[in-house]
């Protein structure tokens, strides 16, 4: 178990320029995810008080929107809405910190798959682009991990001692 945890945690060894290339978009989009996309629908300390959201509560309207996608989304809309909002709101912070980067990248990847191919596809390719951008960053972060600019780098060093 510890070995698996270490594998998930340990970033790929890349040179400095590649580490920067992985970290900069991850940190920028991490900020946007938590501040702009996550906080209006997920209760975080920086959510707008006008939204009347309790801590870690998903907005009342979001499960209804998720249920409208049909299929598995209609079967467990509250759980899937919560997970999507959590992956944006909390995953965004994790991306900024480089904390459990692969796990949160996986959650964000799943969320963005739905955003792009279930929600935005009806509005055309142009509207799919922002979600796709985050999708690619999450895919790269799943493979590379945090790089040296993240807590995972420090934690994996400590674990390997």
């Amino acid at each position, binding site marked *: 178990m510890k070995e698996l945890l270490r594998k998930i945690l340990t970033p790929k060894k890349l040179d400095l320029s590649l580490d920067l290339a992985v970290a900069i978009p991850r940190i920028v989009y991490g900020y946007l995810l938590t501040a702009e996309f996550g906080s209006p629908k997920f209760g975080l300390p920086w959510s707008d008080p006008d939204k009347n959201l309790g801590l870690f509560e998903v907005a009342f309207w979001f*499960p209804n929107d998720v249920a409208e996608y049909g299929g598995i989304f209609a079967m467990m809309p509250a759980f899937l809405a*919560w997970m999507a909002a959590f992956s944006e709101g909390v995953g965004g912070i994790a991306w900024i910190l480089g904390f459990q980067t692969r796990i949160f990248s996986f959650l964000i990847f799943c969320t963005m798959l739905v955003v792009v191919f279930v929600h935005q596809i009806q509005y055309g390719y142009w509207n799919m682009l922002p979600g796709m951008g985050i999708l690619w960053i999450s895919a790269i972060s799943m493979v590379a991990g945090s790089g040296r600019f993240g807590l995972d780098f420090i934690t994996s060093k400590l674990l390997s001692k």
Partner: protein
Amino acid sequence: MRLLLAFLICLTALSCVQKSHDQTVTVTLDVSEIPDIKTVGVRGSDKPLSWREDFEMKPLVKDSLYTATFSGKTGLLFTEIKFVVNGEFEFKDQDNRRVVFDKSKKTIYQAKFNKIN
């Protein structure tokens, strides 16, 4: 890993969906100062209202006083609206009206077109 899973399960168990309740809002609009009234409507940020099309208001007193009632489930403490007469918005490039919900779940809001209450 176990810690993270436990943390996620705890978060899911402790928190969930924002509480919501039915809210009915009745708006009344005084348009007595506007000549030649053709259509009167209200637009807003929460369903069943939208910013794209009028929610029709019916005359209480023709060419003077119009009303509409709408309801829906909400978790918010207020909603934002603007009135539209003959297709023209009030308060152009200004903040929306903020209708604060009454705790009785039935809110009555009276206004005069383009005038702050």
